[in-house]
């Protein structure tokens, strides 16, 4: 704990104009506000992290059980539990400042275009916030979240409204639960998005053989973990060929090799999600392993992977 590390220059990347020591970003909803992980390692070694999805009002989220398991992955239906933007700014960010000294990524969700804009405008003013990641893809809330991420016109409307009231880079987080992911990305780019991140979770479910009922109280949830990696990689590849703005690749990354694959598909940076939950040291291990794995494949620095 508290170790000071000299960042390896080979790992440096740039995300929407902001320099990062490395491309590894714990994904929203799998890292809280970082405190729990800071008990195990100095989280300042991360590129940055995306904090727990924030809405204008506090939310308890869905009833439990919220978690199910599947082969090589998990399904969650948390439903955006968060204390609301006011308390995030008043309580969480000041505490975070004590343990994390880099720009952080603010993840925002909402239930109307106006709500997205309002929450983003408030977080945009916080000096600690480096990027806004706008989640238009949560599969676990009704009447919001994913509905904005499955209709290009609505996705563009959210993007325009957020861009109009913010100054920091705005990254739209896309849902994989669509037929034309490239079209979604293009709609966001045309509306002024500075970046795209994908994929959020894939909709799925499990049934308990004993009770013959769905495991999750919400019936359906979002699948994440290594089982979704090939799907995520394919979508990142498609989006990187459809837009010019930077893309953050995520979905099932658990090791340095996965990071390199995502970056070879065109990602400027990566987010690591479910892996943090099963191995709280996952991101540190990935960052430590990257140079060695790069050597094995003759990669001098990560920047060269960007075509």
């Amino acid at each position, binding site marked *: 704990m508290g170790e000071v590390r000299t960042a390896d220059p080979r790992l440096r990347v740039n995300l929407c104009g902001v320099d990062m020591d490395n491309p590894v970003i714990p994904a929203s909803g799998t890292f809280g506000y970082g405190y729990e992980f800071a008990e195990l390692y100095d989280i300042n070694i991360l590129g940055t992290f995306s904090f727990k999805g924030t809405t204008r009002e506090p939310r308890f989220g869905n009833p439990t059980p919220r*978690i199910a398991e599947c*082969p090589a992955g998990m399904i969650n239906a948390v439903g955006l539990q968060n204390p609301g933007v006011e308390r995030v700014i008043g309580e969480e960010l000041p505490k975070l400042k004590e343990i994390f000294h880099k720009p952080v990524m603010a993840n925002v969700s909402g239930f109307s275009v106006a709500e997205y804009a309002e929450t983003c405008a408030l977080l945009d003013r916080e000096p600690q916030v480096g990027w806004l990641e706008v989640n238009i893809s949560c599969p676990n809330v009704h009447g919001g979240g994913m509905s904005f991420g499955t209709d290009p016109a609505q996705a563009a409307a959210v993007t325009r409204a957020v861009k109009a009231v913010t100054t920091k880079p705005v990254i739209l987080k896309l849902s994989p639960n669509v037929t034309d992911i490239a079209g979604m990305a293009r709609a966001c780019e045309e509306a002024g998005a500075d970046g795209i991140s994908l994929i959020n979770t894939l909709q799925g479910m499990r049934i308990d053989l004993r009770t013959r009922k769905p495991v999750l109280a919400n019936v359906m949830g979002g699948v994440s973990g290594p089982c979704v990696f090939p799907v995520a990689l394919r979508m990142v590849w498609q989006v990187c060929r459809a837009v010019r703005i930077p893309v953050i690749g995520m979905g099932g990354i658990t090791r340095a090799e996965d990071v390199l694959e995502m970056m070879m598909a065109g990602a400027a940076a990566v987010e690591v999600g479910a892996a943090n939950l099963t191995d709280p040291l996952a991101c540190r291990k990935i960052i430590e392993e990257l140079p060695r794995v790069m050597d094995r494949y003759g990669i001098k620095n990560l920047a060269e992977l960007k075509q």
Partner: protein
Amino acid sequence: MRGKGAAQAMKQVLLRIEENVPLAREIWRMRLRGDVSGAERPGQFVNLKLEGCFLRRPISVFDREGDRLTLIYRTVGEGTRKMSSMKPGETIDCLTGLGNGYDLSRAGDHPLLLGGGVGVPPLYWLGKELRARGKEVSAVLGFNSREDVFAEEDFRNIGCQVTVTTADGSYGRKGFVTDALPEGTSYFYACGPEPMLRAVDRTAVTDGEFSLEERMGCGFGACMGCSCRTKDGYKRICREGPVLRKGEIQWEK
């Protein structure tokens, strides 16, 4: 709410299996050895990474002594069945020091332990600590049937007044733990299935605390998978729990 969490620090350690044996129907005991210093208080749990399972498996701590940790678990699903097939000498990646643990300062002179089925194990270490503080400890351990009974002797050996109940009357007293509540106790500690905990909440005459169970994603507070509503706001069962005070819990439905 976070203050309680700040005092605890989890550890990730590799522990070696010394013993893994069946005790009763679907009930196994595993003894582990290594750096178990993270497990600080009775009522805390560990989270085990098992080969072939993506998510870890949270298991309460039955006992900790020096560098040894004892777990008693029920083979309810794939993960715990896999766990029961593990052999002495193998190692397990283990997160220790999870959860808040019981509040021993509230015990009074005559605390009561109420355990139901696989809810019994965490009460043993608690009983041992309470006995070490000179408390007169009663324990009511409830099971479905004779072949489910375990740990009775362990509780007797540390000097607890033990009553065993079985739902079908095949061993001990017939009925549920709430049918055998002793009088004159000062405080209770209960762990078991939710219907039992609700019944205890309704019938117990003293103050007390409950340790709860929920499906967890991470077990250390990051995923919000196991949140519950309480009178003091939302709590994560893995972090601000698993032990919650009587009167604090808002039972669903």
